[in-house]
């Protein structure tokens, strides 16, 4: 479903697009050679660390000659660009684009870490952690939008759930109870969005905005009124790291994937679970039918409004998990407006991933990488404004929505009221 735009391969637009992509590849290659190859002194080494904090098997850190490595990576970009210009990769052009951008970023990292060391595993770990709320938030949005209800209230749902998780988790002295109540609150806000937009026919964007405002107002108010006075109610503790036996001992992959807290495992289960459910099950077929053509779905006996209610509530619950991650999985405490716009990044990831769970996860990883990279660069003191890295997710989303890189096509009935005749 990601290749709707590439209909007839010979149309003028796609030829032009292919050429532009080829030129971009070559330009990135030359850019990498110029900035990162010539930019690093010959003879300097970049050390890339690959060890976790407590690795059973020590892997020697990778020491690469900075200049030469950057040149090799640049050459790969130029080579791929040349092929794209002469033969063209056709449908796989977007994949190749990813490879080229990956080479460019790697060359950049090599340059940034010249005469220095960079903990690659740490970078990957923080990428994964930062992508957790974005992925879960994107899944929440996706569940709603696949059934035809726009959800821009992910931010508000996450914020409320984060607050609930902290408050209830502390009061009950149990992170699990906190998580459950956070999920319930997320579901309730989902129900509110569904009732507003389906029963009372409020514009879905207005309904989402209402939830965002109420969530921000209520959590800030309650946090000043309650959490600030009774500090012990804002100390829920965090979920412990669960190391999966054997698997967590594998070098690199082990500490990265199999020594995490429950949220990361839930994220993987949900990403793949929702993907299978959406595209391989009767339920998924119905949901997609309702999102694409509610009238046709109704005609064959699917209860359109029922599907929408169910999906928006489910989406709210997933957003609840995402919110609980902030207080119970990551920080261990609630702060005012602590989601800080991540609900909107999640919305961006959903669109960037083209309303597809795996795609959304990939997009969230990219955004999480940009986020953790700007942190790392600040430590390495690279003279690059971190603001531009923070901007990257939003720019990328605009490019996708505008059809510059591929084309994002939302479910056809997304945002539309359905009134049974």
């Amino acid at each position, binding site marked *: 479903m990601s290749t709707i735009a590439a209909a007839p391969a010979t149309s003028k637009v796609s030829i032009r697009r292919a050429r532009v992509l080829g030129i971009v590849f070559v330009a990135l290659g030359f850019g990498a050679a110029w900035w990162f190859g010539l930019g690093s002194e010959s003879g300097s080494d970049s050390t890339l660390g690959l060890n976790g904090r407590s690795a059973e098997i020590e892997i020697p850190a990778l020491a690469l000659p900075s200049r030469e490595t950057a040149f090799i990576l640049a050459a790969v970009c130029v080579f791929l660009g040349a092929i794209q210009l002469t033969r063209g990769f056709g449908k796989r052009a977007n994949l190749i684009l990813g490879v080229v951008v990956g080479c460019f970023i790697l060359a950049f990292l090599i340059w940034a870490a010249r005469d220095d060391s960079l903990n690659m595993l740490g970078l990957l770990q923080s990428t994964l952690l930062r992508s957790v709320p974005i992925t879960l938030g994107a899944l929440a949005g996706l569940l709603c*939008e696949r059934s035809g209800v*726009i959800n*821009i209230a992910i931010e508000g749902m996450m914020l409320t759930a984060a607050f609930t998780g902290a408050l209830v988790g502390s009061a009950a002295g149990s992170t699990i109870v906190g998580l459950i109540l956070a999920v319930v609150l997320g579901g309730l806000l989902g129900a509110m969005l569904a009732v*507003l937009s389906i*029963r*009372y*026919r*409020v*514009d*879905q*964007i*207005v*309904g989402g*905005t*209402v939830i*965002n*405002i*109420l969530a*921000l*107002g*209520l959590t*800030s*108010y*309650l946090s*000043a*009124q*309650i959490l600030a*006075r009774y500090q012990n109610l804002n100390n829920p503790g965090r979920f412990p790291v669960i190391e999966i036996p054997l698997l967590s001992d594998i070098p690199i992959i082990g500490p990265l994937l199999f020594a995490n807290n429950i949220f990361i495992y839930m994220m993987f289960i949900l990403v793949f679970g929702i993907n299978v459910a959406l595209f391989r099950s009767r339920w998924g077929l119905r949901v997609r039918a309702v999102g694409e053509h509610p009238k046709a779905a109704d005609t064959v006996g699917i209860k359109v409004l029922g599907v929408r209610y169910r999906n928006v509530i489910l989406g709210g619950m997933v957003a609840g998990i995402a919110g609980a991650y902030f207080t119970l999985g990551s920080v261990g405490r609630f702060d005012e407006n602590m989601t800080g*716009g991540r609900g*909107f*990044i999640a*919305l*961006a990831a959903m*669109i960037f991933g083209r309303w597809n769970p795996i795609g959304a996860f990939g997009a969230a990883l990219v955004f999480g990488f940009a986020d953790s990279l700007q942190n790392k660069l600040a430590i390495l003191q690279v003279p690059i*404004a971190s*603001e*531009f890295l*923070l*901007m990257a997710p*939003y*720019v990328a*989303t*605009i490019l996708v*929505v*505008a*059809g510059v890189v591929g084309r994002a*096509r*939302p479910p*056809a*009935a*997304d*945002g*539309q*009221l359905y009134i049974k005749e």
Partner: protein
Amino acid sequence: MKTEAPPAEPQRIEPPRSRSRSFAIEAVLIPLLALFSALVLGGIVMIFTNPEVARAWASFAQNPGNALSMSWDLVSTAYAALFEGAFGSPIAISETLLAATPLILAGLSVALAFRAGLFNIGAEGQMIAGMLTSSWVGFTLDLPLAIHLPLALIAGFVGGGLWGGIAGFLKAKTGAHEVITTIMLNFIALHLLTFFLKTPIYQRPGRSDPLSKEVAESARLPSFGDYRVNWGIVLALVMAFVVWYVIFRTTIGFRFRAVGANPKAAAYAGMSVAGTYVLAMVLAGGLSGLAGTANLLGVAYSMSPGFLGYGFDAIALALLGRTHPLGVVLAALLFGALRAGALQMQGTADVGTDIIVVIQGLIIMFVAAPALVREIYRIRARSTIETDAFTKSWAS
């Protein structure tokens, strides 16, 4: 509004209402009931988050009078203080008008875009863009007030207009939905602001934190006497009139309304839909830019990182004012009063200022869901159920 009921319908029992009465219900009664319901719900939140009052309610069975009187005391003290802080003295009125100034302009921005069928969630980013240009004019140039101030205001309008224009251009050229692009542009503007505030062009000399230089005396909006309220409020009211004139008395405004009502029909009538989208977003962005600028040149005088926090309010105001400039002005005065009175309420009744945000959220919810208000207060619905659906779809 299509209110005249078709007389041939036999199952209608109620007599067809006159146009004016139905309009009064829609435009006056519903917003008033929305405000009332929001204040009631806000009061309930206050009661159950105040530890002492909540305790009194816990022992409601033993002493119901105590719980009720304590609740009444809390809520009435809080709202009395809110009113006092908003209208109780000349200073209070000055603060209300001051708070209303950017709200009017930002609300007009969203309302104007609504008229052309566009949902401008980007007021926040456009304000930042407008402030970036106007503050630059404000602190670099050295001119007499009569030239400097207008120049800074125009710069603010242009800056915001360009930022808004990006979303309009993308919509016109590629069909990218303006809700997505304006949300993204908000955050891009936010990070651009942080970036610029660290460059020597903007950063105040001798400071290491991101804080901009102060705008020159000659670029500031003069205030009235000793009060903080300044000529910005006059500017805002003039702009409200201009927007009303443009929407209802010019061909441009007619084009906006035609495209907003039905882009296909407008295109068939020979209007340029794409051009209208761009122009509407430029003007809407300009108004938002002016909102940020009025705040900058009127009270703040310098910029610091972060959103101003008017973006969501602006959407609320446009909805509450039913996208009519006069309605937006009245709604903005209300929200300005809430903002101005909140501090006094916190001081007197120990109710956090953020309750205002909750009340505003509830107001929008009730205004956006007239069906809900009708259901609560048992007001009979009109014959045709009209919904203000702004979002056709993400898809173009």
